[in-house]
């Protein structure tokens, strides 16, 4: 691989600005549409150089919460409210404000929006928005105190949808509420999935995204619940004996080869997901299903052995009869052919 600094045409540096300038200059020189290889190489060099430059802490990294919340930790209060945004710009149509608000700073249309300094004392007169935020904080904290994580999350989701919580506050707040929700076994599978979806944590993470351990757990339980829902849907049909066996312990007499295979697969999945959903199953049913899955193969081999043996015997009998009545040889051929097909299906000729 070509040296990235050579590709960019600069000396090694951590100066992000210099890297960008070099990239821009090189990019102008190539036609990305025609020369794909050159673009790819330049892009790879640029991204690698940036990663080195970015290894210093920079502003474009989402701040992670200060520490992990344990289940028995006292519930953490929500982050402090931030001052309300200034009133809409000058080009906003004038409208009467329903509730008292401090006079807006009246920015002009071409004023760039000023970033607000983060730590600021709360404004003297609480605005409607402040009250809303305070109310939300009280609601969430009360629910956390009562160990009612589900209600707490519902409050948070509502706050996010209405914009009471800003986008920057989303992750820290979810980090503090979600661990409780994930451990709460009283939440139904479909409820949990809908909560997860609304919280925005169910989406597939992007390539550059950092996934916190809490979110990983929340997503893992989501996946487990999804499997559980699928299994419950399958168990409604009489023909789906693997699902019925696992969920309800419905007794079975004989399982065909595909059913055994399916049962084995579902047991593998159950073990994989059991951390999250073991409480939804009766462990006796699982133990029985495991026994059946293990026994299934033996029972089947025995059964096919008997049938194949009978066929071979009958074929030999036909062979013996050929002496008197030549057409009986057709019976021999048929019997051997069927016996061979059955043995092949039962996997007798497969290696290992």
């Amino acid at each position, binding site marked *: 691989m070509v040296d990235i600094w050579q590709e960019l045409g600069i000396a090694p540096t951590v100066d992000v600005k210099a890297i960008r300038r070099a990239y821009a200059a090189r990019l102008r020189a190539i036609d990305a549409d025609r020369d794909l290889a050159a673009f790819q190489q330049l892009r790879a060099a640029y991204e690698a150089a940036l990663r080195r430059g970015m290894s210093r802490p920079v502003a474009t990294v*989402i701040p992670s919460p200060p520490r992990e919340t344990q289940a028995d930790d006292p519930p953490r209060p929500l982050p402090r409210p931030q001052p309300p945004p200034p009133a809409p710009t000058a080009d906003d149509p004038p409208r009467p404000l329903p509730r008292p608000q401090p006079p807006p700073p009246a920015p002009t249309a071409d004023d760039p929006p000023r970033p607000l300094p983060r730590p600021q004392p709360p404004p003297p007169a609480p605005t409607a928005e402040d009250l809303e935020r305070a109310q939300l904080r009280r609601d969430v904290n009360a629910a956390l105190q009562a160990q009612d994580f589900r209600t707490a999350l519902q409050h948070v989701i509502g706050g996010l949808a209405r914009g009471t919580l800003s986008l920057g506050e989303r992750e820290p707040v979810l980090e503090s509420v979600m661990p409780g929700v994930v451990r709460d076994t009283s939440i139904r599978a479909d409820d949990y999935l809908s909560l997860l979806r609304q919280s925005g944590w169910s989406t597939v993470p992007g390539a550059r995204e950092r996934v916190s351990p809490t979110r990983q757990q929340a997503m893992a339980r989501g996946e487990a619940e999804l499997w559980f829902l699928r299994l419950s849907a399958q168990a409604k049909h009489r023909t789906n004996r693997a699902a019925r066996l696992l969920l309800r312990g419905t007794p079975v007499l004989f399982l065909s080869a595909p059913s055994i295979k399916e049962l084995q697969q579902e047991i593998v999945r159950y073990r994989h997901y059991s951390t999250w959903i073991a409480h939804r199953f009766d462990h006796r049913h699982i133990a029985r299903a495991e026994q059946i899955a293990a026994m299934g193969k033996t029972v089947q081999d025995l059964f096919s052995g008997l049938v194949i043996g009978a066929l071979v015997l009958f074929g030999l009998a036909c062979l013996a009869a050929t002496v008197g009545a030549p057409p009986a040889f057709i019976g021999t051929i048929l019997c051997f052919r069927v016996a061979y097909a059955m043995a092949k299906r039962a996997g007798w000729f497969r290696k290992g």
Partner: protein
Amino acid sequence: MIVGIDLGTTNSLIGVWKDGAAVLIPNALGNLLTPSVVSADDKGRIIVGEPARDRLVSHPKSTAATFKRAMGTSRAIAAAGRTFRADELSSFILKSLKADAEAFLGEKVTEAVITVPAYFNDAQRKATKAAGQLAELKVDRLLTEPTAAALAYGFATGDDESVVLVIDMGGGTLDVSLLHSFEGIMEVKATAGDIWLGGEDFTQLIASVFMEEKGKAAGIPPLSQNLPVHGALLRQAEAVKRMLSDTDASAIEVNYDGRTISWPMDRERLEAICEPLLGRVRLPLERTLRDAAIAPESISRIVLAGGATRMPMFRRLITRLFRQLPVQHINPDEVVARGAAVRAGLVQRSAGLEERILTDVSPFTLGVEVASRTADGTLLQGAFLPIIERNTVIPASRAHMLGTIIDNQTRVKLGIYQGEARTARDNMFLGQIVVAVPPAPAGEEQIEVRFTYDTSGLLEVDATPLSSGQTSNLVVESNPGVLTKAEIAQRRAALGKLKIHPREDSENLAVVARAHRLFEESLGTMRMQVGKELELLLAEIERQDPQRIAAARDRLRHFLDAIDRNPLG
């Protein structure tokens, strides 16, 4: 001459780079916005734009609107007693815009930059290009709408580095993109959206709540039947939605069965009704920020584009979510078209434009379907293996090694998919390649699968078994919703036979269609008067004296203006 076209769900605009500025071109009626509506009159002649929009009320069966949503599908849309595909309907709009531009510029327009939502997939982009070709426009390049909006605001000029979030909510789609501009380069870092959320959905929701509360009791048939009364209701809902951006209270008035049903509405109630829709705005915003790994605080500008972002509740939500005021000093309806015009100027290398380089990202994850074995030998099938991750800078080429899974396997079937779901079948199927491999124990035979995605949104897949070195190649092009080259030529000939109303007629048509609509919406003496005035104009049109027609038309227009301002008379 190269023009920039914003082909929107509800409205389309055309612009051009002229004398060092982006200039938008008015249509025959003098308006910059041409509604994306196509209709046909009794003789089967095609009507486009405002007159067609008014015909939505009077002739809903022969009029088609919001067809941009069906782009890239083979869905047939009924209009004018026959069916069209979305790209054909779009080509009528493009033709009419092109005629406006040629009349305005006095020269032939041959090439266009057309904008598409960033979220448009391969098939949808190709359908947009096909629409351009059907309208006899060369479309070399599509421009994504958020990039266009940022271009219109002139970011990426000079040295200043900025992170710009563009939120574009038009009639039909919500598009969110995060752009990073530095050193004259504008780079799309991440993009996300909701193709089923736009201003029209708000209108539909208001109309359906009206039906629940008042319509059912009054015996109006359900909305799905698409009768004239529903067209009138939707128009009223749209008007109320717009009005409440400026005023505090309004009302919906619908005439049905000789009665007037009135439904008062104020801003607070409207916001309560629309809350579920607004809640959906948040998800694409979060996803964009997460994909780009950028904290909300480091965004330097928020740009709003699209008419639906005018709603005060929408702007308030954005301000609250980001604790920052959005920029909106260019008319949000026009900003995308202005950006397209800038791009057209860049393509022509016009003077007065600093060279800018735009890099884009792939809006979707592209990958293949794979199977794997668990430790105990169970075969798990149907998983989706991403090869080009979403928001990878394009053009991009990525390779992945795959192995066989069964002993002595001789063929490997590679299903190619686009989407974000973990299981392949939940994603969109694009095509498949079957690769022959020499028999060997499972896992020994390796295949290199290479995906190449270029700037025009074309995906090419190469699969090479290492032992044989014979490459199988697939250009993912055939798609049920996309026309082939031969089909385009054939369709163009077929559409060429359809008569389109001449541009000069469009003023008359617009006034007549509007009078028809008001005739149906009003009652009693008002109705009689509209009818009489309309007859006067029709009589003049029969006589074919341009001056007298113009006089009669103006009279009728003033009269209609007066009614529209005061619907109750």
